[in-house]
């Protein structure tokens, strides 16, 4: 991300925040949130290059990774689960990545990175890619089956299972 882009996103954050305050509502005043926004923008789309997050505070890094991966903030119990002050900064960040990417949420097992820009750095997924191929093949096969056949099968299954 360039300095100009970083500045623009920060300014928009401030404008939105100021508007909140002008309506008498406590703004997004927690400094972590603006830092998180900027950190997450720096890390996108590939959060595994944590050299770019070397100077990012741990709590900001955690939130940035959650934001990138799950589009939400880490809950207090999740933060507690992965907190480990005995680890060095770098080891801690690695542990966060592992914890997040090994999560079953949204079935992102084996999914290492979002790469939607070009064909370089194509990663070999194992089970994930296989499952994806199977799913896409089944989708294509399913699309070719006439609707009335599918309705008939569905009806039969419903009857068998005692559904309405």
């Amino acid at each position, binding site marked *: 991300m*360039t300095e100009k882009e970083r500045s623009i996103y920060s300014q928009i954050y401030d404008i939105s925040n100021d508007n909140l305050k002008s309506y008498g509502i406590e703004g997004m005043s927690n400094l972590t949130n603006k830092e998180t926004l900027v950190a997450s923008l720096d890390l996108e*789309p590939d959060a595994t290059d944590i*050299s770019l997050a*070397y100077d990012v505070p741990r709590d900001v890094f955690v939130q940035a990774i959650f934001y990138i991966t799950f*589009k939400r*903030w880490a809950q207090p119990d999740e933060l507690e689960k992965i907190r480990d002050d005995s680890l060095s900064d770098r080891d801690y960040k690695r542990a966060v990545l592992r914890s997040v990417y090994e999560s079953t949420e949204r079935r992102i097992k084996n999914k290492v990175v979002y790469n939607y820009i070009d064909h370089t750095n194509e990663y070999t997924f194992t089970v994930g890619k296989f499952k994806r191929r199977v799913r896409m093949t089944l989708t294509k096969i399913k699309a070719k089956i006439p609707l009335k056949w599918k309705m008939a099968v569905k009806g039969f299954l419903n009857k068998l299972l005692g559904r309405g």
Partner: protein
Amino acid sequence: MQTIFVDVTNLTKVDFLTGIQRVVGNLSLEMYKVIPEKLTFISFNEDISRFEVLDSDNFIKYIKGGEKERSRIFTGKSILPCDMKPGDIFFELDAVWNISLKSSVLLPALKHQGVKIVVYVYDILPINYPQFTHFNTRFHFINYIGSYLLYADAVIASAQSTLDSINELSDKLGLPRRTGFVSWLGSDFGGKKEADTAGIPKEVVEAAKGKYVLTVGTIEPRKNHAFLLDAFDAGLFDKDVKLIFAGKIGWNVDDLKKRIEEHPENGKRFFHFVGLDDAAIDYLYSNAFLVAFATYAEGFGLPIIESLQRGTPVLATDIPVLREVGKDYCEYFKLNDVKDFTDKLTNLMENPTEYDGLKEEIKSFKPFTWEETAAKVIDALSTLKITERKSKKDVRQMVILTARVDDIKRTIPYIEAYMPFIEKIVLCCPDKVADDMKAIETKRIKIDTLTDGEILKGRPLPEDHGTRNFFLRCLAMQSDKVDEVFIMSDDDYRPLKEIDKKVFLEDDSYVAYYCNDLNEWKGVVGGMTSYDYYIFRTREFVNENRYPGYQYSSHMPQIIEKDIYLEMINEHKGIEMTGLDEWSSYFNYAQAKYPDLIRSKPYIVMCWPGLRTDWKMFVKPTEYLFENHYDFLYKDGRIFDGLSEEYSENTDAENALKIEKVTQSVDEYFEWKNKVQKYCDKVKKDKLEIPSFIIYIEEGEIVLGAPETLELPVCSTVHLPITFKGNKEGLKMQLCIISDKGTVVSMPEIKLELNDIKIVNNRFDATLVCGQPGTKKGGYALIFRVDDGKNTIERQTSLKLV
């Protein structure tokens, strides 16, 4: 042909259609009726992190409701920005800020590819009215709107008020306003129908008996339903008028939900209906005394249109966007003013003549149709259509900037032998060598000169080499001695075999050869030259103007159309003084203006870089038709030692040998590069982190990071990316490979003065040669050392040479 890629991601995923998805569906349908051949609908597939191309016919059937199977609309074919052509349009029609695809990453990549970007903006409420949006949405939206303000070529808004708010935001940010268009929104419903209760739920028909005020829309804070309840509680319930809410319960309205459920008039004179179908909504609209629209903020205000279409008067908040949409057909009240609302409603209830007059006026209201909305959108998109321009058919001239008589004398025989279509060469040279240049003997090519004096016509010459060359080339374009199409070259670019002009002219396009990506260029490792600085300046130029960003200074002859070069100079006044790369500035400009005219291909020249250690190669030449001649390569045991630098009867055979040697060398380099990449991929998969080197200066302290283990091909030349943050003044960095016996095996020990390095987006490259001939595979130590003159910090990586 220009393709318009229309992103309809959310529409293909949701089960319940929001207002925005209805707009996306209707617009897609109407646009497809007019320009089906130009449109490609795409949807972002989170599983594969790719856009997926949709089957247009099935997608349209799906929107119409004719195709029930959503799966049929997906083709399984994926597409990335690098698959799109320069001049294509990426049209963001859907509201996609909440998905994993980040505009901040996508849009620069699209722009770099030469793709035009258009976005349909429904509103910017998360910025201007953040209190009405979810916390997460605000964050996603900052990324979304910020990216589009930075990169969009055009913005289409649903209302002028929305466009005005976008422009205001651009002004606050100090960004130039994007070209804006207003399309308005059409309406789903077909107009007032006769009261027909068939199929309408009984409770709705019952509630609709008598006089009632209706409000339609999701119950959320922004829509201000609480205000309507306040107004009715303040006395309107006593005035023989009912209140009906039609809309599901949204977010952040727990208190209001409770108030609605427990309201004493609920079921008597106050009703809340959820999940009504179109027919029931239509019935309610048609039979209402009045529709109330008490919203705080809107992007458009469709309920106004839907109400007026049915001849039902509207009492709406007096805010700019509703004034724009409702014009004089509505009555307006001050936002949140119970008294004003009550007075105006009571007035209409107690003055039938006035009420009837209002209804009569509404009859002349003509809503926008979706066809008209689509026409406006298509008009907006057509402003970005590709300007057709065909290449000239012929090229016979070469123009060379040179002050070196001996060098050009040695190069011309190669041009004569291998470029038969070149009939004349113009040498742009200092006045003092013009006579020597003109005296160069040739077999068939005519030589002419264009001296600095003729070019400058009294203007001073810039002192810096990089600035000077670009300056001279820009001014030379104005000379009549330069043909309308010519090959621009330097005195050390030599053809290697016979070349047809089809190398430069293909169909009706010019072929432009790129060697790198301007955004990737980090300069020659350890020794920045003026070349590097003019590449960095060119990068700023193309990014500032949102042109594509390939690097075309490939150190080979390239074809130029003079008129386009002059167009660039004219459009960017003063550009000749800015010291840009004369090839990259021109080709990226030309491709932005005339996408079909420039066909970009990987370069076809050897010896750029001169040595594999110079810089990280991004592009592998597809073949070798030219040589970037360096005389040092012909001595001291280098790659061409023993071969001739002069054209002779042996040149064909020697060139063939040179090609063989270079091919082997470059293939080897890319083999190493791929091995290193595969290794990094594996580490990434296993450890969720790529091997990285970091130098971080924190409050004067040096912090270093290095991988614990690393694998590199033995005797390879690799370019290691180093992440750097902080002040680099006075810092020195070393990288060396040491055997277990303490011998340095890297060749040579790399020492870099970081002052000489250009840090690009917190990165620079360091070259490492992993051994000398005879170095064995096995375990070594890679020492990474940084020294600030007072302290030396070192990290050791366990290195395996494979």
